């Protein structure tokens, strides 16, 4: 269906246009095109060309997402750059406590030799998915924003900032937590603010981390150390928003001293590698995930607290469910942009997302708390979990993304 000209004759008609070339948008395009080479799929992204190469963040990629990347022909390329998380330690402490009692330890494997997660630099993930997209013949239009779109009976017309227009059967918005396309579609989002920000930075340290991830529940909020390749770690550090702003704007020495105070000295001397940045934290949930000829995926549908490291993994779940829904509809000859097809995706994803959003919200409220009885209760709870191997393995499997009504790609199967 890629050859017919639209009424205006400016551009060929597409089957699917994806707005946003982050890992969610890229993975969606690759998943669809790989399963249905007959579909004309393109991506449009507002960010300037090569801006993605300057992203210094890293993401936790759960086992299910690894299986999906491997099914998409990407994981072998990512693997040499990925740091497996081989164990995970969770503590609950006051910042000044010299020794932090360990309440929960996980041996991080979902199956022998398969760690429950890897840490991957965003630019590695993005670069690999772009390479695969190019291989499949997916066009990426860069540095051009979507200005507006109109939904017709059988297609949606998308007007771009360079005053060209595109016509597609379906528009997928993967344009992040503050999705402009979500607003244009008139879909309301519910947002809870935590008054907290997550400070993200990369540190180099003297001694090896041995693949261990640490999460310390400090009074201001969770402080996570996530192992990267080499003697480096990614820090996700939660503070009240005004404290976070002050910290990232303070001079290097002050920042490193404050960081060391929380990080501890078990890995030796620390050096901050990039400019720390603070991201306001909140829980954003779109009221609907779909509208006629329109679907939301990833953070555009649900921005959750990064505490459980599930942002990328939830996004990949959306992609896997959306791709499977569309591919099955296309194999039945159905119109892939029709609302009844899209509603199957919405039913599939919404419950899981709300559940995960609420869980991480509750976890955060519970753990960003210095009130004595609350601390005692949660420590009792964590201690209890640590002594119950079956419950622990349930948590591990939840964190690995291997629970729930799983789309085929996340099980490592072709659609």
């Amino acid at each position, binding site marked *: 269906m890629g050859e017919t000209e639209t009424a205006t004759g400016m551009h060929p008609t597409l089957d699917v246009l994806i707005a946003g070339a982050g890992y969610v948008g890229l993975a969606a395009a690759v998943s669809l095109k790989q399963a249905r080479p007959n579909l004309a799929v393109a991506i449009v992204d507002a960010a300037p060309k090569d801006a993605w190469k300057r992203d210094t963040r890293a993401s936790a990629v759960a086992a299910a997402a690894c299986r999906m990347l491997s099914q998409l022909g990407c994981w072998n390329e990512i693997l040499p750059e990925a740091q497996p998380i081989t164990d995970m330690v969770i503590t609950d402490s006051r910042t000044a406590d010299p020794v932090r009692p360990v309440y929960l330890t996980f041996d991080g494997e979902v199956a022998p030799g398969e760690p429950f997660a890897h840490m991957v630099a965003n630019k590695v993930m993005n670069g690999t998915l772009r390479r695969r997209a190019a291989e499949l013949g997916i066009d990426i239009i860069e540095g051009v924003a979507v200005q507006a779109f109109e939904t017709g*009976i059988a297609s949606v017309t998308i007007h771009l900032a360079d005053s060209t227009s595109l016509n597609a059967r379906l528009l997928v918005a993967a344009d992040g937590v503050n999705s402009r396309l979500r607003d244009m579609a008139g879909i309301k989002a519910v947002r809870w603010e935590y008054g907290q920000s997550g400070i993200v930075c990369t540190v180099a340290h003297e001694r090896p981390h041995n693949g261990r991830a640490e999460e310390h529940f400090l009074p201001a909020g969770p402080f996570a150390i996530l192992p990267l390749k080499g003697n480096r770690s990614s820090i996700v550090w939660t503070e009240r928003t005004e404290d976070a702003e002050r910290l990232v704007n303070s001079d290097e020495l002050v920042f490193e001293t404050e960081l060391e105070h929380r990080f501890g000295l078990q890995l030796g001397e620390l050096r901050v590698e990039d400019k720390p940045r603070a991201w306001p934290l909140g829980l954003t949930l779109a009221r609907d995930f779909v509208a006629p000829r329109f679907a939301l995926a990833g953070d555009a549908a649900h921005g959750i607290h990064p505490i459980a490291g599930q942002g990328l993994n939830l996004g990949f779940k959306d992609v896997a469910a959306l791709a499977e829904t569309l591919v099955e509809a296309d194999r*039945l000859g159905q*119109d892939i942009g029709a609302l009844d097809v899209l509603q199957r995706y919405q039913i599939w994803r919404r419950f899981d997302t709300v559940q995960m959003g609420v869980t991480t919200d509750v976890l955060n409220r519970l753990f960003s708390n210095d009130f004595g009885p609350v601390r005692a209760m949660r420590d009792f709870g964590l201690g209890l979990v640590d002594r119950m191997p079956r419950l622990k393995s349930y948590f591990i499997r939840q964190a690995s993304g291997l629970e729930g009504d799983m789309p085929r790609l996340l099980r490592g199967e072709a659609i």
Partner: protein
Amino acid sequence: MPEATRSTIDTAEVERFSALAAEWWNPNGKFRPLHKFNPVRLAYVRDQVAARFGRDSHQARPFEGLRILDIGCGGGLLCEPMARLGAEVVGADASETNIEVAKLHAAESGVTIDYRATTAEALADAGEKFDVVLNMEVIEHVSDPQLYITKTSELVKPDGIMFVATINRTLKALGLAIFGAEYVLRWLPRGTHQFSKLVRPEELEQMLSNAGMMITDRTGVTYNPLADRWQRSSDMDVNYMVLTEKRRVA
């Protein structure tokens, strides 16, 4: 539509047809039950046609080269998917309005379908033949079921197949398909189905074999209220589908 004929069309009529087309194709509107029912019957048709004609259902346009007739096509809910799967499709409906609506929507969707306001009898008498005849949810509405089955069977090419979908005449069907769907859930307008006109599978199969057709498969279709989805089942007490084949005379 050729430029020359455009001026003769009444704009008010076109608007009325557009509104009706929007209604037919609104998955949450009046035809919601049909939209909900569509995936399960599409999957059955696709898989059985692919098996019968040796096609790979995962390929794009697996029905290329097959001639398919949909009798009682309505707004084209089955015709458009068949055309997208690559078939050469004729959609027939006795209602002129339905045919205009279906034409309008097909033009919007960019699919090619030969829609005709005609009846199965007229098509059969004109000698039309098809590889696949879709005879879905019509028989329970006709006045002479045996004549209808005989005429529709004539439309099938030798070695071709015909699908017949309908509702069983059981107490369960009276409860679910008539009382439940028409009176309680209001999925369908009251009076859509008359109990006495419903057809039991053994009656249908007898009519088909009288018309020279051979039954090759049958399946029930049931509604799963938890998943809000129709699925295939061995339970043929309410909705069911029968696949028949016309054997070439040796």
